[in-house]
């Protein structure tokens, strides 16, 4: 239980940093930290494969990409913080969070189902991924391909 609270606290801390940091690089770092803590959380939920993936894909790929873009553009926009707008935004977010929390008290799944040892492991995921979710898997690969082509086309420097 304690582990969960620590991790939860860290996640919230870092995610708040992501949002509130004036300097883009700091918020990028904060995001990376958030992802790592999330990965650990996944582990506590018996999803080792996804934890690893999280680190590999998210922290590794996407974060690098974001940092790369930040380095490429080195934006200096030290953003002026219009108070009224911040207030409004955060109020909205808080309201949303309340609603979601209220949802939670619905009779959610209380009994904790017994879970086989290799639950989160690569075999079980692969087994279900390539049987039930074969079609979505194919589509996902097409999606990635399109994304890559799109990104290249967009970011190309017009000659």
């Amino acid at each position, binding site marked *: 239980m304690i582990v969960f609270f620590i991790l939860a606290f860290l996640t919230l801390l870092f995610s708040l940093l992501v949002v509130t940091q004036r300097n883009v690089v700091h918020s990028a770092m904060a995001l990376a930290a958030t992802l790592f803590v999330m990965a650990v959380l996944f582990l506590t939920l018996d999803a080792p494969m996804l934890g690893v993936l999280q680190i590999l894909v998210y922290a590794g790929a996407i974060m690098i990409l974001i940092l790369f873009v930040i380095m490429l553009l080195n934006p200096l926009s030290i953003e002026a913080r219009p108070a009224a707008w911040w207030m*409004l935004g955060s109020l*909205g*977010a808080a309201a949303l969070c309340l*609603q979601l929390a209220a949802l939670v008290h619905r009779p959610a799944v209380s009994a904790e189902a017994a879970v086989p040892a290799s639950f989160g492991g690569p075999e079980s995921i692969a087994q279900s991924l390539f049987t039930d979710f074969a079609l979505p898997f194919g589509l996902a690969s097409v999606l990635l391909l399109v994304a890559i082509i799109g990104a290249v086309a967009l970011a190309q420097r017009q000659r």
Partner: protein
Amino acid sequence: MTTNLLRWIPLLPLAAAVLNVFFGGRWGKRFAGILASAAVFGSFLIALRVFMLLSPDAVLRDTLYTWIESEPFKAQVSFQADALTAVMLLVITGIGFLIHLYSTGYMAHDEGEARFFAYLNLFVFFMSVLVLADNLLLFFVGWEGVGLCSFLLIGFWYEDPANTTAGNKAFIVNRIGDFAFLLGMLLLFWEMNRLGVPSLDFAALKDAAARIAPDTAVLITLLFFIGATGKSAQIPLYVWLPDAMAGPTPVSALIHAATMVTAGVYLTARLNFLFVLAPYTLSLIAIIGAATALFAGTIAVAQNDIKRVLAYSTVSQLGYMFLAAGVGAFSAAVFHLFTHAFFKACLFLGAGSVIHAMGGEQDMRKMGGLRRRLPATYWTYLIAGLALAGIPPTAGFFSKDRILLEAYASPHGSLALWLVGWITAGLTAFYMFRQLFLVFHGTSRAPESVQAHVHESPAAMTIPLIVLALGSIAAGWLALPSRDVWDPWLQAVLGRSNPAEHGEAVNETLLVALTVGIALVGIAAAYFLYGRERRVREDGPLWGTLAQKYYIDELYDFLFVRPFTAAANWLARAFDPGIIDGAVNGVAGLVRGISASGRRLQSGNVQHYLFAFLIGTILIFVYWLRR
């Protein structure tokens, strides 16, 4: 008995008018005048024929066709001629013909001659329709038709804005009278409908008159009387007549002296059975008649324009006629109408010939000494003047005395009314002879250039003058106390109202003596003041107000015209565009405003949209959770 003779009396002048409109100008210089005069002469002959055919209580009827029919209302174009109509017809066509003859001379060198004669004929047409009509609606057609012709003829010389303004004023003031007349007709019809006799024919009215509710009868007669004041220029609607002098003189003679202005008197005479039912209205008529007579008489004293004096004199004489009608002596009123037509037309034509001789000059202060230069005009003018003043043996004496007698002796009459009438008689004599002396006697005050070519009018103008002058004398003998032809002739139509049986014979001679006396005093005063050289200085506050017609025109302008135009102006400039149009454009503006604010919602800022999205989801949650 029915005949198809009557229709030709109006149709002849109408045909001539139409011909003149289309071909008048083209067929030679004098064609229009001759055609017009011939047409009216034709009508005069037919009128004489009708007069022969008629006996006091006989009625000739001539129905053409049904004009308006909307069950239960039915109005036919049909003419009737009884004793009263015959008299009026003789006046209209007879004097009308003389005036047409006179106009051929007077308008000889006017380039709009054809148009003038067309209008004059149109007038005779409408006047004869008015007199011959056998129902009130056709009467109203004639009534407004003559108003139209007076508008056209007053504004005949349209190039001078003053003339056309006078024309407009005449038509509009007449229209105000017609407004009341129309309401009277409507009220009368529905009252008759209530009595089960839905018709406006005079015959039907006469039969059903007794059953009409008294207070409705009073209202109806009041409305008709207001109409009559409009047409016959009584207080308060007399203001148009003096300005009507802007028209050519023959017009003033025919329309504003002899015929049209008497339409009001004819109306009261024709509907005497209604007026008798409403004693209240009768007394009002008498009072207004007397008041107008005196009022106009005083103004006439101070006028310097030769025609304006005669105009106010006409208003005053009409006051006498209404005074007579007011005291129930309708036949006396019509008799005065009859004689007045003669001498007033003669005076106007005389004045016309003076103006013609003086090259258009109308201001008496620039005239004088024309006695020898215009002998025929002078003598006819003198005779007519004596008639107007009411000196025996002229016609005016007989008709005016009969009215004064009735005013005193008749059941509705009173000493006060007689007194007012008596004073006015004196005034009349005074202003008449003041004019005579100013124009014809003394030394000529005209500039040399004008005096050089003063000449007697051509025969075409002097003959009518002579005939009318003779008429001014002879007309009176119809009602000599000894051999009274007039009363029995109109008795059937106008009912018995002869005060003679009252038996105060002594009073009668006394009254006559008094009237003639004051007339002579008036003439003497005029001679004393204006006879030889001018002794009296015409100024001072009293004279000023009289000369300015008691500032009545200015008062009307201030009380009615100016506020009305101001209100209309406010409505047209501020209210209509501002408030009503404003409301319409306001609605349009409102819609544009709302849509403009709607447009701002699409700010293009992605985050605004996301925020809106967020709010939306929250609301859905809120709704979903609470459900």
